[in-house]
Structure formats: structure tokens, C-alpha cells
């Protein structure tokens, strides 16, 4: 499983949408509802490498959320940021997670062509890999 899908599963299990219904990867399909979340891979970097070869790596994911109700966009993205930056102990299936952190807080991306507010939050996943 790629890390974006693992994170989407994590979002779903925490109540942030349902995969392929209102929560997507890579973009939003044409027939998606007005209220939709999508996650886009945004790069990353190697953080450190052990002499034995294991690595710590940072993956960046951008989480977008759109809705006609702009306040819902602000509320939902703040809820996600507070969850990610809480003292919880998160795990992603198939990955050894060092840390999951919201590193760019909710940012208003303005309205789209259908007058829906779009917001964005960037997440940094620090993973330990053999």
C-alpha cells in the first residue's frame, strides 16, 4: 500500500470522509459531491540514514477540502490539524511511523468555479524504513 492510501485510510478511520465517496486520492472526480476531501502527494525528503542502512524519511501530503459551506471547511481542517498535532500515538498500516504532523496549517485557497471554498492543510509523515 502506498503511503498516501495508508494516510487516507487513517483519515477515514478518524471520521474524515469515506474513500471513493467523498474522500479521494490525487484529485476529485467529476461526479464527486460538493463536500469532498482529496489528498495529493507533495514530495518529501530523506531525513537521516543509519550506518546500518535504515532511513528516516519525510513524506509530504496536501489535504484539500471543498464545500459550499465555507465555515465547514475552516472547522473540518482545523479539526484535522488539531487531531494530527495532538499527543496521540498514530500508526499507519504497513509503515513504522515516527511522527505525523500538520506542518502547514489550514490555508484558504479561495473559491472554485462553483463558488465552493477550498482549503488546504499540509501533513508531514516521518517514517522509519528498513
Amino acid at each position: 500500500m502506498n503511503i498516501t492510501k495508508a494516510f487516507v485510510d487513517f483519515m477515514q478511520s478518524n471520521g474524515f470522509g469515506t474513500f471513493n465517496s467523498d474522500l479521494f486520492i490525487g484529485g476529485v472526480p467529476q461526479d464527486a459531491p460538493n463536500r469532498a476531501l482529496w489528498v495529493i502527494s507533495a514530495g518529501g525528503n530523506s531525513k537521516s540514514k543509519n550506518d546500518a542502512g535504515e532511513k528516516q524519511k519525510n513524506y509530504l501530503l496536501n489535504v484539500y477540502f471543498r464545500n459550499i459551506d465555507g465555515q465547514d471547511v475552516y472547522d473540518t481542517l482545523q479539526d484535522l490539524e488539531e487531531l494530527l498535532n495532538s499527543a496521540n500515538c498514530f500508526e499507519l498500516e504497513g509503515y513504522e511511523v515516527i511522527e505525523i504532523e500538520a506542518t502547514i496549517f489550514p490555508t484558504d485557497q479561495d473559491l472554485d468555479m462553483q463558488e465552493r471554498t477550498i482549503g488546504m492543510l499540509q501533513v508531514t509523515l516521518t517514517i522509519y524504513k528498513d
Partner: protein
Amino acid sequence: MIIKGPFTLKWGSNTLQDIESIDVSHEIDSADFQTLQGKTYEIDGSYKVSAIITLLASDVAALAVLLPQHFVAMGEQLSTGEEVTSEDGAIDIKAAACDEEPITNNLDILSCANPANTLRIVDCRTRIEGIEIDGKVQKVQIKFLGDAAADEATMQFFADGGISPES
């Protein structure tokens, strides 16, 4: 397996909150001895362990948990004669009397993974180590000093629930 945070700190049955940082130190006294044949042996002596935590929340309630030996309850008198009128009590930092028994508990530092791993500093007493005021926040540093009996470990590592009976 990587042991990772966020970490939960427990001193006895009290879970400690609002800890900005923790610094654990373990020292082993040792001495070198040289033989006439030119070899050097390092012989270990006694063990000493301590931990310093920096508390972001340093109100009386938070300090009362960590410094019970200095806690003065409402209605009782401070060492300077005033009566404590606050429900929270007060903290009266003064040197212990020579016949005063130190209050000791294990300090457990639990990691977040399931099962959590525990780093235990055995039988710690506490003392105030310093106060930092940076213009915005007052932080208090508390030092935990391992006070284990001579035949007991100073420090232990184990999985949560991995020893029985846990004290």
C-alpha cells in the same frame, strides 16, 4: 523497534502533565587501574541516575503532585507564619528536617507504541532544580533522584504489562 513518543510520565500513580522536556542522566563511577604489564582495567563502582523535567504548567496544583514534601494544605501554616487560605494549598520550599523521610516513587516513562515500553527510574525522590522565566512563561525544573536500595536496580526497561506484579 523504535521507541517513540509522545511519552507519558508517571511518578507513582500520578500522571504528569505539561512537560516540555525530560533529560535522563545515568552515571557510573569508575576508576582505571594499570598493571605492570601495561594493561589498563576500568573498574565500575556505584550507579547514579537522575532525570530533570521542565514543567510548562507550574501552578500550585501541578507542583503539589511533584513536591509533596513542600505542600501546605489550606488552613495550615507556611514556614513564615502565614495561613494558607487557597483551596489549592501552597508550596513552601524549605530544607527537610533531618528526621524527615523522603517521599519516593518509581518514575515511569512510557512510550506510545502498543504495547508501550517503559523506562523506569527506581524509587525517585524529587526536588526543585530551577526556575526559568523568559518573559512569557514561567517554567519549573524538577529533578528526580534515583534512591534505589543497594540491592535494587537504578533503572529498568520493560514492555508495559511485561513484568508481574508491577509495583
